[in-house]
């Protein structure tokens, strides 16, 4: 009886496993690169918007409103980042780095939006959402679902989601400025005080009455609804 066959079969099977692992890893690397490239593109666009804002100086709100800040791009990036985080795990170094980049972009977008709001007297509805996915926030997933649904229903609603535990000084400064303590989930609508704990769809619509002023879409988009988790 030829026992070599057992060894050869094991080696080939192991090689197939190794190949599957390699291909999956390569595709994950491509994903990470894709997210990084998208983040960099958004970063350039944001910078462009800031420069445009400075150049316009004495306000051309019509021009600004014709080129809205990068909500769709940021949301798309968030969806991809969320998917990648689910694939690679929230403790993956690449994921953490991308989340930091994403959080910074969000903060920059948020600040730019505030400046435009002040000068153009517009009334955008923005929500800062703080979550944790380290297992200490069982309601964060559902809260994310509610915010994602609201964002899809009211395309003009701007939701900025932040991983509360992310080691990023700019984010920690924002947390300190808006006086968010460690109770999660937490969200801040506009300039109001933080609200803590899970809120259902009905409760959210009561807590943010200005949602009624926003246009709605009948069909929610088909993007993955996890980006605000």
């Amino acid at each position, binding site marked *: 009886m030829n026992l070599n066959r057992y060894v050869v079969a094991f080696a080939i099977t192991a090689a197939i496993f190794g190949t599957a692992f390699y*291909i*999956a890893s390569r595709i994950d690397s491509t994903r990470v690169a894709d997210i990084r490239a998208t983040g960099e593109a958004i970063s350039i666009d944001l910078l462009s918007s800031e420069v445009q804002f400075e150049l316009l100086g004495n306000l051309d709100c019509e021009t600004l409103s014709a080129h809205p800040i990068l909500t769709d791009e940021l949301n798309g990036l968030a969806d991809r980042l969320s998917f990648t985080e689910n694939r690679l795990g929230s403790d993956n170094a690449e994921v953490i780095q991308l989340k930091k980049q994403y959080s910074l972009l969000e903060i920059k977008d948020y600040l730019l939006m505030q400046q435009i709001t002040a000068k153009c007297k517009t009334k955008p509805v923005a929500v800062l959402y703080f979550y944790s996915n380290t297992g200490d926030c069982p309601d964060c997933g*559902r809260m994310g679902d*509610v915010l994602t649904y609201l964002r899809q229903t009211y395309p003009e609603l701007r939701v900025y989601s932040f991983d509360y535990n992310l080691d990023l000084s700019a984010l920690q400064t924002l947390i300190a400025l808006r006086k968010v303590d460690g109770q999660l989930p937490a969200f801040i609508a506009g300039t109001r005080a933080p609200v803590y704990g899970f809120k*259902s*769809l009905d409760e959210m619509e009561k807590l943010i009455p200005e949602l009624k002023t926003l246009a709605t879409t009948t069909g*929610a988009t088909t993007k993955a609804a996890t980006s605000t988790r």
Partner: protein
Amino acid sequence: MEVGAIGMYICLFMGLYFEVFLLISFLEKRPHAKTAAMPARYPSVAILVPCWNKAKTLGATMHSLLALEYPADRLSILIIDDGSTDGTLAAAQEFAGHAQVRILAKENEGSKFSALNFGLKHTDSELVGCLDADSFVAPDALIEMVKKFESDPNIMAVTPAMKVFEPRTLLERMQSVEYIFGVFYRKMFDNLSAINVLPGPFSFYRRDVFEKIGLFRHAHHTEDMEMAFRLHANRMVIANAHTAVVETKVPTTIGGLVRQRVRWSRGFLENSRDYYYMYFNPRFGHLGLFALPFGLLAFVGGLYTAAWGLYGIVKMLLARGIDFWVTGIPPQFHLPHFEWFYLDTSMLSFLVIAVTGLTLVAVVVGSRIAGSRISATSLVTYFALFGLVAPLWLARATWDTLRAKETGWLV
């Protein structure tokens, strides 16, 4: 990585290993094509046709047997009516005028083995074959069988290449691909001297077999499997004549299929218990080290995969239901949105693709060995359906076997 996924990786590794092992065996020794050579000698042959309520199909089975290209004076056909109540005996009488045909009748004793033994007592032919009365043989199938016996005097039993007779429904098409896969692995098991079942449709034995190791046994309603185990236990060689083609009718309903496979699966478990000493025993070669352990692993792996999949689906539905209840978000139905970024490109997915791909290769090789073509519809049906229905009989057979434990056998 969660524990459940680790189990899946183990199952996939075992599945891949099994297929790779068989493909290595195929590359080492490829099945030869059918030749026009004829046997040097025509031994006397008896074909036993046990029937229990086979009035509808017996005629076609008999016509295929009477069309066998074999000297009429060397071939006898014994119809054994096993206490049928549907007019099988009358259907058999239509062939009473043929000199080769003998018609026997007995009371039903609840299992096929008694009909086979009854027939064995009425013949003294050198070779004895069996054919279920819902199977149909190719005209040259017996010649091919005899040639196989002639090729090696140590061969004591031979199995054929089995195909599904005129598959039409989705369930039959699914089984047709499964049988073609069976043609492949049975031939590879032949290469490994590890054939572990002598199926009812057209398996043949030298008469010496019964004189040396005894007649068929009840064997948990799987006398064909037990006989193969017993032949191995007595160091007798079983071979496969892939050029001897037999077509068989298969269950046409899910219920019928599950009942048939529960019997087979339970037979495998019970006979494995009876012949436990063969497992991992190098004395029994690849049968003990490969064929039997992987047969059991396929059983466990199939059940595990089904349980893992079911658990995932139930968990997801529960979570969705609770989320819907708690969040108040109305149900949303989206058309699938394709974007490469969101494709499932996990290692698990690639391994599933690898297992599926190797299965496909085995089916293609099997179809070439059997000289038949498999339609795309049949292939799609097989890959889509088999994984859904197989757990039904695996679970039922396990359940039945465990219940039998209470009545004695593991106490």
